[in-house]
């Protein structure tokens, strides 16, 4: 049973949602991004979600902007304004506008009467006609039509024209002709709207100061910055949506910050590998030799990396992998989001293997956890996989401003240098464990005394080949203990308790905002819950305690098979029947309504 969300309809100022329906490859997303960015500059909490197809040109694509003064900018399920720019999808798009909402469309051609709803207001702007009269080239007309509708939206939504003008100036710095063309196109739409419609509409933006300690950044760029700041010098990758922009950003930052001013040479090497078998192999090789190295990928890449993740686990080689998850299985839906690689990553590779996982919930955490990933990988000499997703990775989020502590010292883990080696009689790679069950390693090129033979075959504490049960078990048992010790080193879960709450809600990653919004609404309806967002695997004592403290828990995640729930059942002592699931896995970012509907229905209220 769907429950209608009770919204504060008294004011739509800084509280509304727009959906823009476009044709892929026409340059619309940069116009849409411009609008969203302008609202952010006006200090208003906002989000922009690009719901694009796996296509270069021609297929329908959508962009959603949600403005919410309290900061709940997860995906909305109903829209106040529909910007219908794609005749192919008119019928469906117009259906999606809420009652009393607005449809902005290109009135150069008449609208099919069957598409006219009596309960919405139509804002017709003759975009194609105006742009064709003012600009010459075919490509220019297509691109600038987007800027023209943006101009109309600036007028009807009350966006500050000076802010937009500044953004255009920044975007087209050094390309004055382009900037001027964009300004003119913007004015076309703006002027027309001012003249023909009542501007601004009730749903509009007004300056506020909510976004003061925030920045607008996507998770992939933030993760790339994390890798840069962590001191990664070798990166290997194979192009794959939705992780490609991470390595693009890393390369761009390296070009800016890692070229030696004296020699002109690069203090980094980014290698585009032949496949993901190779990219993870390169990471292993570089980490084995002592560099901080990483790769970024998505689900299909994780499948290919399984083999060498097992080698890294067993031979105890640090490796950092960023998995920007998309909808699977197989090729799945490459441009849709999901959280469906959790189990595949937790136990990646054949044999008994377990990995350390980090779950960022927003771009700020992508930055912080990327740094953490290197520290943990080197401390525990093992792969660390950070599971982001397409929604966090590729969409711009208003997120707490990234900060850096210059006192940070990388945790390189237990590595013996020549001096250390001189002090000991002999070196054995898998012997002399510390309290974390980590044994010291050595790097090639340091001392013949540190030489050892790295292998994925059965080995003894000394690192020698073995097929003997007790020698083999001595090593794999220590690996299990070592993994267990990481539980208290991964980021703590975010936990929030409310008075009188009897139900616990557990979630992960980018579900955060939608779930928080839903819980507030549910509590208004008398369903009061505690909240936990897990941020790392293996699970520590806080996770176990939260599960123990509740008789009933909802686990909210974006996959079909309740993977987080499975992981909790497998890796804590929680009773399976205490955990109920809220599963949303159609590929679109989670919205609060999804959570409210499911929990209300399951509780029969």
């Amino acid at each position: 049973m769907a429950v209608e969300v009770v919204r504060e309809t008294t004011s739509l100022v800084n509280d509304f949602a727009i959906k823009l329906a476009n044709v892929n490859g026409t340059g619309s997303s940069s116009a849409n991004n411009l609008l969203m960015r302008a609202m952010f500059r006006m200090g208003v909490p906002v989000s922009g979600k690009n719901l694009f197809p796996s296509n270069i040109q021609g297929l329908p694509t959508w962009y959603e902007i949600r403005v919410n003064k309290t900061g709940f900018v997860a995906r909305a399920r109903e829209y106040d304004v529909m910007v219908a720019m794609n005749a192919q999808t008119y019928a469906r798009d117009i259906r999606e506008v809420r009652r009393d909402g607005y449809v902005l469309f290109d009135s150069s051609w008449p609208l099919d009467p069957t598409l006219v709803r009596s309960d919405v207001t139509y804002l017709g702007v003759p975009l194609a006609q105006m742009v064709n009269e003012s600009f010459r080239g075919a490509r220019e007309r297509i691109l600038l039509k987007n800027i023209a509708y943006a101009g109309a939206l600036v007028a009807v939504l009350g966006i500050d024209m000076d802010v937009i003008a500044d953004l255009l100036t920044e975007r087209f710095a050094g390309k004055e002709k382009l900037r001027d063309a964009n300004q003119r196109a913007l004015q076309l739409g703006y002027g027309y709207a001012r003249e023909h419609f009542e501007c601004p509409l009730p749903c509009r933006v007004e300056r506020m100061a909510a976004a003061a300690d925030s920045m607008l950044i996507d998770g992939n760029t933030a993760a790339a910055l994390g890798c840069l700041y962590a001191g990664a010098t070798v990166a290997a990758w194979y192009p794959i949506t939705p992780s490609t922009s991470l390595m693009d950003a890393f390369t761009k930052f390296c070009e800016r910050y890692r070229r030696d001013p004296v020699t002109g040479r690069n203090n980094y090497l980014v290698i585009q590998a032949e496949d993901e078998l190779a990219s993870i192999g390169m990471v292993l090789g570089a980490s084995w030799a002592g560099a901080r190295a990483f790769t970024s990928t998505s689900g299909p890449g994780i499948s290919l990396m399984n083999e060498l993740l097992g080698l890294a686990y067993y031979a105890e080689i640090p490796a950092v992998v960023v998995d920007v998850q998309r909808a699977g299985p197989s090729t799945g839906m490459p441009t849709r989001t999901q959280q469906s690689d959790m189990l595949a990553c937790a136990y990646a590779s054949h044999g008994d293997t377990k990995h350390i996982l980090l779950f960022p919930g927003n771009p700020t955490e992508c930055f912080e956890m990327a740094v953490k990933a290197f520290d943990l990988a080197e401390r525990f000499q093992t792969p660390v996989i950070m599971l982001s997703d397409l929604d966090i990775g590729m969409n711009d989020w208003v997120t707490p401003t990234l900060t850096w502590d210059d006192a940070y010292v990388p945790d390189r883990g237990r590595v013996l240098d020549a001096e250390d080696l001189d002090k000991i009689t002999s070196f054995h790679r898998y012997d002399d464990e510390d309290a974390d069950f980590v044994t010291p390693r050595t790097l090639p090129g340091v001392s013949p005394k540190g030489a050892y033979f790295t292998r994925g075959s059965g080995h003894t504490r000394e690192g020698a080949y073995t097929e003997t049960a007790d020698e083999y078990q001595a090593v794999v048992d220590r690996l299990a203990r070592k993994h267990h010790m990481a539980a208290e080193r991964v980021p703590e879960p975010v936990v929030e308790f409310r008075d009188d709450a009897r139900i616990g809600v557990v979630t992960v990653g980018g579900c955060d905002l939608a779930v928080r919004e839903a819980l507030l609404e549910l509590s208004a309806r008398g369903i009061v819950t505690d909240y936990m967002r897990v941020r790392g695997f293996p699970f520590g004592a806080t996770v176990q305690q939260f599960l123990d403290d509740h008789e009933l828990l909802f686990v909210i995640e974006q996959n079909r098979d309740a993977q987080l729930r499975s992981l909790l059942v497998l890796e804590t002592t929680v009773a399976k029947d205490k955990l109920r699931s809220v599963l949303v896995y159609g590929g679109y970012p989670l919205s609060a309504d999804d959570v409210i509907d499911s929990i209300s229905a399951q509780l029969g209220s």
Partner: protein
Amino acid sequence: MPSIVKPSVTHPGLQQNRLGLTARDYEGAMSTLCAGCGHDSVTAALVHALWDLAIPPHMIAKMSGIGCSGKTPAYFARGAHGFNSAHGRMAPIATGANAANRDLVFVGISGDGDSLSIGLGHLGHLIRRNVRMLYVLENNGVYGLTKGQFSASADVGSTAKGGAANQLSPIDPIGFGLSAGATFLARGFSGDKQQLVPLLKAGLAHGGLAIVDVISPCVTFNDHEGSTKSYLFTRQHEVKLSETDFLAPEAAIEASIPDEGVVSIPMHDGASINFRAVPPGYDATDRQAVTTYLQDASARGEVVTGLLYIDETRADLHGAGNTSMQPLVHVPYEKLCPGAAELARIGAR
């Protein structure tokens, strides 16, 4: 007891290299391969080459994949780090290690299964990147550890131990290398250490990827009549393209009077390679001519050995990447992190 420590036997008469080390210092654990295995001869040649070039053992990185060849890095240079990785994956792992520390001397040992089947894609891209490394392909035409299946280098008509003849066209690493843009291609025979040692030395001195395809007979599964990778067949059909001398930089100056018919090729670090017995007109730097020569020889059923092709001009992985001359592992963290103030500037953009 699958791992056997080799007793270190030394006697005062052993010759020392520039570092004061004897050949014994470049040995490793006792081989667990079959008695008479070609691979053990290759190991012995490597020990000799590494000792002769006086490479500090700890600066060597021994890389391998899986198979009989994959085990051999345990049998030489005990003072060096070794990485016996996964089947077919030596190339990317070595690429990453080389990216991190360009000062190491990489010695990769692979086999025909490892390089030409499961790892063929990686080999192609290792060649394209020209990763500086000696890549020894111990080629016996057969899968030994899984008991005698044909490999991708088995010739058409070559028979397995049970008598079945291979029907599939072989992949020749030299021809593959020529087409993918390799910069150093040589072929040797494990039974001819005289020729093999200089080839390995030249490969170690090369400024990029040096592939040395070594016919290395499998005494257990592929040394019978009907095999084209046996000791007998190779001895009967081998055509030595050239006798090769590798001259280290300092030696090159002394060898000022070359023999009649010697072709000398300078290497990037000042060393040089001298060929003798080169067929008239053979130019090891002319890719097209080399390709034609080798195809003709192959059609005649000849196994051509020697240094077949060399190009010292192409950039390696680091040249193409304009990487710092200081190995990336040694670049201090302070030079890598842009710091808090810069992050604030990025945030403000």
